[in-house]
């Protein structure tokens, strides 16, 4: 273990470990069979180091379990953001980072040669001019340094206008405190908050899935491809059989469930001439390909299809085009008006009609009624009837109910 390094080069290697520990939290060492023992030990040690306040150890028969005890009701930030702050670097990287930026705080624009000279005179550190050039160009590309060319001379300088404005604006601090925990790509809001020395002590978030941040790298690449309207190649690892496949698709939209904790890419497959959704946690790599000329037409087509989507499925198992589901429920009026409100609020465009006193009918037409079953079951105790043109859905609903009566001896 003498060569153990706390920091890592590659995020994708650790992503699955964190997910397994966080989401499952019951896997013992023996159950991580696809990795060597040494890899497992090192990754486990890293997780314990990065996330120490949240790590819980339990002892099971097959060895000890490591899990992450994260209760989102009690947290001001997402503890899993720590995983994004573990990138390794060289000695030169960190020294040049601080000295170049410090040097330019008090200087006007400087050439690479001037910067290299001043690093020696001011900080007594000797660097090759090519090393300094590489770092300055990299920082200009990241937006930290400004680069300008006057004649043959290329100079670098700092522009602190924006950071200084942000530092003095308390309202933006509040906004960042909120968005880092509740918004998309919150990790960026979090590092920006740290840069501004802001800590969230105001906002909490309910129905949040902290594990999503592990997919933020993939999300970021997909959004980049969507912004540029590019075809992409995805490397996908099946969550069921671990089989890895690649597909070429046109990424169009991110579908998010606020209930199940799943996020999907909705994409168009030219080869099958249809839309399909892929879970973000199964996408391992994203490779941008060529520009798609008819991108906006596909988006419009998706928008036209969306009213018939219940979740993420564009086709039922019975392969019919559209299915109709009708649910009749009993509501004690007027005290249980909130149930009718629920039907309207959560019914995703389905019609709600009062058919008799205390009786309401909900009707909807969607691509795949099978996806509706979890929601339908939330009305257990009120359902007078359920009819669906997809008979397998009806059958499963009633069979599941019978199973539950049996399980609970009712």
């Amino acid at each position: 273990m003498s060569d153990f390094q706390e920091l890592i080069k590659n995020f994708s290697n650790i992503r699955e470990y964190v997910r397994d520990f966080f989401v499952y939290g019951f896997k013992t060492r023996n159950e991580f069979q696809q990795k060597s023992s040494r890899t497992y030990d090192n990754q486990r040690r890293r997780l314990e180091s990065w996330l120490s306040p949240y790590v819980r150890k339990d002892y099971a028969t097959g060895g000890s379990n490591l899990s992450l005890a994260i209760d989102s009701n009690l947290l001001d930030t997402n503890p899993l953001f720590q995983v994004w702050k573990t990138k390794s670097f060289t000695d030169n990287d960190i020294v040049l980072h601080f000295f170049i930026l410090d040097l330019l705080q008090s200087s006007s624009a400087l050439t690479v040669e001037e910067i290299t000279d001043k690093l020696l005179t001011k900080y007594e550190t000797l660097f090759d001019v090519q090393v300094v050039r590489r770092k300055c160009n990299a920082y200009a590309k990241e937006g930290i340094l400004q680069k300008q060319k006057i004649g043959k001379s290329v100079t670098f300088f700092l522009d602190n206008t924006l950071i200084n404005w942000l530092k003095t604006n308390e309202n933006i601090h509040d906004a960042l405190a909120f968005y880092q925990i509740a918004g998309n790509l919150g990790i960026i809001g979090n590092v920006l908050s740290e840069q501004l020395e802001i800590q969230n002590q105001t906002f909490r978030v309910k129905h949040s899935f902290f594990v999503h941040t592990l997919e933020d790298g993939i999300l970021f690449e997909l959004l980049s491809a969507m912004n540029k309207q590019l075809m992409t190649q995805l490397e996908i690892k099946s969550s069921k059989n671990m089989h890895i496949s690649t597909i070429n698709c046109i990424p169009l939209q991110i579908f998010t469930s606020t209930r199940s904790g799943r996020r999907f890419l909705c994409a168009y497959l030219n080869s099958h001439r249809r839309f399909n959704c892929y879970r973000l946690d199964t996408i391992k790599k994203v490779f941008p390909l060529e520009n798609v000329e008819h991108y906006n037409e596909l988006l419009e087509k998706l928008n036209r299809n969306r009213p018939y989507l219940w979740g993420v499925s564009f086709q039922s198992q019975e392969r019919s085009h559209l299915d109709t589901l009708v649910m009749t429920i009993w509501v004690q009026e007027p005290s249980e008006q909130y149930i009718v409100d629920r039907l309207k609020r959560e019914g995703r465009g389905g019609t709600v009609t009062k058919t008799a006193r205390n009786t309401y009918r909900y009707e909807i037409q969607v691509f795949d009624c099978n996806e509706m079953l979890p929601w339908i079951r939330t009305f257990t105790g009120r359902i007078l009837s359920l009819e669906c043109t997809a008979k397998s859905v009806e059958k499963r609903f009633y069979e599941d109910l019978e199973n539950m009566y049996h399980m609970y001896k009712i």
Partner: protein
Amino acid sequence: MELFSELYSCYYRVLRHLLCSQNPLTIKEIYNRICQEGFEESLLSIIPKLEDGSWDLFRREGELYLSKLSPSFCIPLTNLEKSYLKALLADSRILLFLDAEQAETLDRMLDSVQPLWHQEQFYYYDRFDDGDPYETETYRRHFRLLLKAQKNRQFVDIDYNSPKGNRVHHYYVPIRLEYSLKNDKFRLLALEQRSLNYNKLETLNIDRIASAQLTEHTLPSSIDINSIIQNSYYQEPLTLRILNKRNALERAMLHFANYEKNTTKIDENTYECLIYYNQSMETELLIEVLSFGPMLTVIGNERFLKSLKARLQKQKNLLQA
């Protein structure tokens, strides 16, 4: 633009804090700072680099470490951070925080920047339809007032339209503003002063607040909200048995990932999961468990089991009628 970059690393942040320190530091002070802000084992990596001069960022004067950086050191935003801010400017909630002039100023400063995403690129397919009215002036005014009161621990005089239709009037100290992604709503977690020595934690929907006025009174000390929430959890957690069919295990683990829980394997295909919750979460949790159908079995607690059975019995009666 890179998301996984050393620019955002924990080590860079720890070193920035050490280097921006105005005072010379002893090695013990450096140790303490690394322990506070770094990872658990960061000390083992950072200290040798400082001591052997590989990171020659300090001048040594005897036992003291003096930063080579100027105190005014600061780092401009990366393109990634700018693109992120640009995307936030298009969010419907941003004007709860910024006034129009501030939003305009920021937009001008980010004039040449492309947003990291556009709102329409995200589709929340199971989000409720009745989200809060962020664009109305009354809502924004209440939100800002509550935000101010929360920071100052100030009592607020609130007139509230309860879900049952009653008008309630009380003095509250805002403790947290809670956002629900599913409901697209903000709720106020606030202490209601019942007597001189007794405050009760209440949850109010911000869009149900009819009027709110700041008062002169403040709470003398801060409140440990987590203790209040944790103390509200039932002693006996919900115990679920999960049969791993139709991918139920993975779905359940993800679905309940935002609860404090503990899962153990019982046999090859069965798992047991303990979920900690309180009274305010009970109905929602019951509905979530029901949504899984027979894939989950509730073992306990008795209270939860009783509610579940009552619903199933009612369902059976309805279908037999």
